[in-house]
């Protein structure tokens, strides 16, 4: 894999956008820093200014006041067109060109940049492998209409990554996918993100998606004001205000449990009588506490037996699952 750039920070500095004719700003003095290599999810209600914030970065929308910097460089220091060629951009419904083949779609930016054919060919093949569309030959000459929604979205991600941009902007990229495909593409994207380390600003209105994907979550409230910015566990444990609490929903406590896997809290030793655990169900170490809780509840048991690849790791009690012995906050070191 030839991934070069490891990412550059994106800094919003009192970024404000008021659309012509609008009484109030769509985005109001946003201060936000997405660190190099970080994945930040931007969430909020419909009309909260998420898309606006994203499009300010690649100058599809012009700032009314304030500034945005990529690395040390203000976005207004270069031409909008040059700027966009250094930013990966993926949107809902993939935005693939219906009259271009998969290969042609992925080659869009490299072609504009004048790469030679051989380099484009190599890069395209590499990207298709990366997004899990292999063997490559099967996909190259297909048209978007011949792909499923999930496959289109994968091609959309490959296209956004094509010229190896240090920064990625994604606007509800998985919004149109059915739940099962969505989870699969999310997992793949997370794996890609960890492998290539692009600074990513990811808009979604699905809070669960944000909790799952984000290093940090920025929550916008109506009027385009930043309500809270923090790690998923910070936001879930300490909502800044009533708006955030309501936005996170009444299952906030359970969602927090989804941040930790059973494998992370299972004690290394077993000190329970086997009679006690005989009726306990089995769970995989990779399951989240929330999922394990569901299994335990369904079995009407007091705990679960944790397995990893066929090996028994130990047991977790109902109490362990509800109030994990390792504080969830301690996982931040693991996340980053």
């Amino acid at each position: 894999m030839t991934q070069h750039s490891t990412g550059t920070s994106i800094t919003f500095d009192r970024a404000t956008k008021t659309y012509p004719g609008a009484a109030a700003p769509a985005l109001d003095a946003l201060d936000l820093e997405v660190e190099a290599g970080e994945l930040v999810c931007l969430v909020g209600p419909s009309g909260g200014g998420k898309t606006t914030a994203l499009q300010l970065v690649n100058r599809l929308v012009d700032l009314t006041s304030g500034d945005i910097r990529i690395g040390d460089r203000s976005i207004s220091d270069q031409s909008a067109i040059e700027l966009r060629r250094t930013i990966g951009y993926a949107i809902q419904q993939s935005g693939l060109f219906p009259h271009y083949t998969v290969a042609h779609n992925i080659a869009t930016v490299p072609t504009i940049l004048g790469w030679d054919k051989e380099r484009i060919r190599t890069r395209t093949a590499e990207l298709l492998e990366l997004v899990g569309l292999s063997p490559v030959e099967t996909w190259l000459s297909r048209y978007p209409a011949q792909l499923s929604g999930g496959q289109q979205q994968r091609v959309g991600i490959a296209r956004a990554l094509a010229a190896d941009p240090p920064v990625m902007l994604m606007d509800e990229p998985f919004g149109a996918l059915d739940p099962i495909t969505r989870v699969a593409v999310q997992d793949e994207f997370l794996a890609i993100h960890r492998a290539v380390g692009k600074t990513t600003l990811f808009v979604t209105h699905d809070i669960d998606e944000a909790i799952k994907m984000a290093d940090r979550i920025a929550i916008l409230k109506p009027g385009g004001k930043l309500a809270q910015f923090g790690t998923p566990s910070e936001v879930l444990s300490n909502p800044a205000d009533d708006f955030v609490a309501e936005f996170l929903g009444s299952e906030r406590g359970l969602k927090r449990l989804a941040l930790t896997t059973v494998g992370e809290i299972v004690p290394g030793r077993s000190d329970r009588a086997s009679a006690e655990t005989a009726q306990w169900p089995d769970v995989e170490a990779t399951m989240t506490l929330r999922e394990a809780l569901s299994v335990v509840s369904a079995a009407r048991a007091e705990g679960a037996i944790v397995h990893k690849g066929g090996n028994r790791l130990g047991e977790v009690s109902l109490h362990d699952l509800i109030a994990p012995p390792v504080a969830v906050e301690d996982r931040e070191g693991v996340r980053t």
Partner: protein
Amino acid sequence: MHVIFGAFPFMIDNVALLLTKTGDHLVISLIPLLAAIALGVPIGVWLGHAHRGEFLAVSVTNIGRALPSLALIAILIGFVGIGMLNAMIALFLLAFPPILSYAFQAVDSIDRDLTRAARGMGMSPGQVLLKVELPLGLPMIIAGIRTSAVLTVSSATIATIAGSGGLGDVILNQVAYGMEGVIAGAIWVAVLAILVDQAFALLLRVSAPAGVRQLQSANAM
């Protein structure tokens, strides 16, 4: 009934006449059509690309619809006088609105997400036009030309009123050619219009970009 059958012997006997008149007819239709394409396609495409001038494109079409070609010619005789030029101006005014409004629609109606993605990736406005809007809009642009072509070829018949020849000479001259001649000329024009229509239908199929054709056939199944 015998008059209609009589039209066919008339055609056979007068092939030379009909062919000459067809030649004139095509020239009278083609020149205004080409002028309408040369003007209407660029203006329509440009307005569509800028997502502006919907008002203009729609009003031109409505005025075009409201004015029957016969009335147009009558009005123009007043201004330009009788003659070939007069007929061609009338036919141009007839051909222009559909070409303009289809070209506008073709580009204006392209999914905004697509053009947003194209711009977001760093395509210049010219690249968005050439690589995305024109290829995807082409079938509809051609559909507009098709409408105008059929309209022009069939309406050129009445250009005779303005004294410019063509098959209208035969159709509108029962004294010289008899009822058989009138009907023969009418059938001839109808066939000509159908041929023009079918030629464009073919062009339309070929012009749809491959990925889009896939989509159409997939939807048809």
